[in-house]
């Protein structure tokens, strides 16, 4: 394809290959993206920054043809393009590599690279030797000598990522979109990946990159696009930006998430986790929670910070009773609860609000009211029958207590926004009158206003004697309401801080590289 030299690049000499012009996306009444404008330059890395729910993934999906934009244009080399499917985008050289890799683990590297586009001989049979030759060539090009016949399931995640890249290259991709490629990689694998990325740049491939590790992304990015609540708040070349600049544009005016509730005495130890070990399902002799001990008092708010894979979710799921520990004790009000199932633990006041509300929190086929009352059915059951008047009263008070914006208990759960859905899950578990309230990433995918409301609820709960444990991957949340910040890394507690801690200390303890 020939390009017309209508390059609008002002900040760099490189030509523009792909531009977004006033791109908007609506989901029903919800505006997910508003007037997004930026350019992708040939052979450079453009990074999208933004908090969870800022619209990064939506934007990527529009660029790669997974979903169509509601308004605005995608301009590829000066021509308006319109993708109706990812294969349309791929035909024009745009490939997306999702965070969850789309390789078939049972097939080998060669078959994965050519999956769906097998090379055939004249006879119609697959030309395995030619495929293997090309696959080997590609792997050599990427400087990763993986034999084409190695089954993908035998490869480390980092290597699998490179196989994905090889597949994209084999499709002659000129624009590679990578969604959080480093989130599951070790430090050395990240190094390898970045080497490959630099290599690709020198070959003229453009990269669009999303990462939550700001420092890491800054190492390789050439342009930064920052999104906040679906709006592009900044777009600038590398030479004009630094970490503070990104954070400022990501978070916007600093929003007060509150401070630790004060003015009351904390109670006795409500939850005591002692030498807890949870073994890894996938790898033998490895623990996702490794000899971890933690006490939480009634009225105390403890925040567990850690990177993905630090073991936070596994810890909470084990304490809630979904996963069995291999060693250690869980004491609730100094009573061992390890042998109880989830229902019995809820009855005794130990509840969990799960991380993924769609998968683990909500029953999509039931109304808002039924979701709210699901965990405390016994409270409105008389003589074996549920009482609808008692239930309605309970639902109404729950809606009121956690401030859910809804037409009432009869509304479909899907009609609520993410923040309100999260409040439904929180309200459901609060309705059981717990003593220990655990929340796994309660702020995930909800906007800052809803986040503040959730944190306010937690503070109020703590004031009334609730022991609160929540996890987060956003440092700013550690500095809000918790009385104590616990940093987890590789299944262990790597540090504990009081409220006065700085962001840098927390990040350093989590194993995040704070390289400038």
């Amino acid at each position: 394809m020939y390009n017309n030299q209508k390059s609008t690049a002002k900040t760099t000499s490189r030509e523009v290959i792909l531009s977004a012009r006033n791109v908007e996306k609506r989901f029903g009444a919800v505006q997910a993206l508003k007037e997004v404008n930026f350019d992708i330059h040939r052979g450079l890395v453009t990074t999208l920054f933004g908090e969870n729910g800022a619209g990064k993934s939506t934007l990527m999906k529009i660029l790669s043809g997974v979903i169509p934009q509601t308004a605005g244009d995608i301009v590829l080399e000066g021509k308006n393009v319109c993708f109706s499917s990812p294969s349309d985008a791929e035909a024009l050289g745009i490939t997306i590599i999702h965070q969850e890799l789309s390789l078939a683990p049972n097939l080998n590297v060669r078959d994965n690279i050519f999956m769906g586009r097998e090379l055939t001989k004249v006879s119609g049979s697959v030309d395995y030797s030619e495929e293997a030759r090309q696959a080997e060539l590609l792997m050599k090009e990427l400087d990763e000598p993986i034999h084409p016949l190695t089954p993908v399931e035998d490869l480390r995640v980092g290597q699998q990522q490179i196989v994905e890249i090889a597949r994209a290259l084999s499709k002659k991709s000129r624009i590679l979109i990578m969604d959080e490629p480093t989130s599951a990689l070790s430090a050395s694998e990240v190094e390898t990946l970045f080497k490959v990325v630099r290599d690709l740049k020198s070959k003229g491939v453009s990269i669009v990159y999303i990462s939550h590790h700001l420092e890491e992304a800054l190492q390789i990015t050439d342009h930064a696009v920052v999104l906040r609540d679906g709006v592009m708040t900044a777009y600038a070349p590398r030479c004009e930006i630094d970490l503070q600049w990104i954070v400022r544009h990501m978070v916007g005016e600093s929003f007060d998430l509150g401070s630790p509730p004060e003015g009351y005495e904390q109670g006795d130890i409500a939850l005591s986790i002692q030498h807890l070990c949870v073994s890894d399902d996938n790898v033998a002799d490895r623990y996702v929670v490794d000899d971890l001990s933690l006490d939480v008092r009634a009225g105390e708010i403890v925040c567990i910070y850690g990177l993905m894979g630090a073991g936070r979710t596994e810890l909470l799921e084990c304490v809630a009773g979904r996963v069995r520990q291999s060693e250690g004790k869980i004491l609730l009000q100094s009573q061992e609860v390890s042998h109880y199932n989830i229902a019995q633990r809820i009855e005794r006041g130990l509840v969990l609000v799960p991380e993924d509300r769609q998968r683990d929190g909500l029953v999509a086929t039931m109304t808002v009211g039924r979701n709210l009352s699901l965990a405390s059915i016994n409270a409105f059951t008389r003589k074996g029958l549920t009482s609808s008047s008692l239930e309605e009263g309970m639902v109404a008070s729950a809606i009121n207590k956690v401030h859910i914006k809804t037409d009432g208990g009869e509304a479909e759960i899907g009609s609520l926004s993410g923040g309100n859905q999260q409040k439904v899950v929180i309200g459901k578990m609060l309705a059981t009158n717990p003593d220990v309230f655990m929340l796994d990433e309660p702020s995930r995918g909800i906007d800052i206003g809803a986040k503040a409301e959730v944190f306010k609820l937690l503070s109020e709960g703590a004031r009334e004697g609730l022991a609160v444990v929540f996890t987060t991957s956003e440092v700013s949340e550690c500095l809000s309401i918790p009385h104590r910040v616990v940093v987890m890394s590789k299944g262990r507690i790597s540090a504990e801080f009081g409220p006065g801690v700085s962001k840098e200390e927390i990040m350093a303890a989590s194993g995040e590289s704070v390289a400038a």
Partner: protein
Amino acid sequence: MSHYNNGSQGKKGGIDIIKILLEGRAFFALIAIIIVFSILSPVYFSTGNFLTMSSHVAVFGLLGIGMLFVILTGGIDLSVGSTLALCGVFAGMLLEGVEIEALNLAFFPSVWVVVVLTCLLGGLVGSINGVLVAYFKVPAFVATLGMLYVARGAALLLTDGLTFNRLSGDPALGNTGFEWLGFNKLLGIPVGVLILFFVAIVCMLALSRTPFGRWIYSTGGNARAAELSGVPVNRVKLSVYIISGVCAALAGIVLASQLTSAGPTAGTTYELTAIAAVVIGGASLMGGRGSVRNTLLGAFVIGFLADGLVIIGVSAYWQMVFTGSVIVFAVMLNNIQYSAKNKSSKKLEKKQIDSKDKNSEATAA
């Protein structure tokens, strides 16, 4: 039926009529069937015929209600037709008398004992299905497909392939009255139909007014979320298969008494009719949606359609074509209804937009 707020788009009157038609489709289909056949045949619209047709429906209705419980949890029970036959011949065997050779004794249980024992057998068959599905994590389709063969084989083994015909008992032995279940009427209504309505009312109450009913809907809607909310998901799954087995046993008893014979090949393919009744009643095969009332309507649609076709003299081959078309049409309507409702919510969308990407909702909060 529950109220569906159709999300954000303000829909106007005309579409609401379509919505009512969609949601009450099983009911309207039944009305349409009655009107059409009443026009086509003078004998169709009479109390006598309705009662006859209803006693045919009783068998499918009982199977359908049991199937509904399983389908509500997102499972399926393919074994009910075979369970029906196994329980039928078991009842027949008991009524003809059990001889214990070692003691040189013959044992003739009375009818109510036979009914209780047969229901227990049905429950036992169901519990095997349930244990396989809930605890051994065998896919429901496979576990109950296996049971379809095993139960049919057991029925054949039990009878050596023969049929029990002497079900009427002997006054001297005190085990008469079995055919009463199939032939007699109370207040002018066949006993089989009364059994169906009794079971239906109990099940309706169980689903709508007990914690167990709530557990079933939540297990089918999202088992992971239900479990984390303290619902004993595995016990719920086990229970629904037992209920389905007991319903199949009841259907077997009703069928055997209606036919005054219990054969090992009875009820072949009835599981499919039962699934069809549930589906025509608007239940989702994914679980979480459906009701006893609509399942009954579904069973009546199938029964009244089949009998109507017989009455107006349509060949059995054409009956199959019609029934099949109705089923597919019903599922198609289900999809239209659920996809309209899911527009604002999950499942479909979730496949396209990964769970991380909740920005759409986030901005609306």
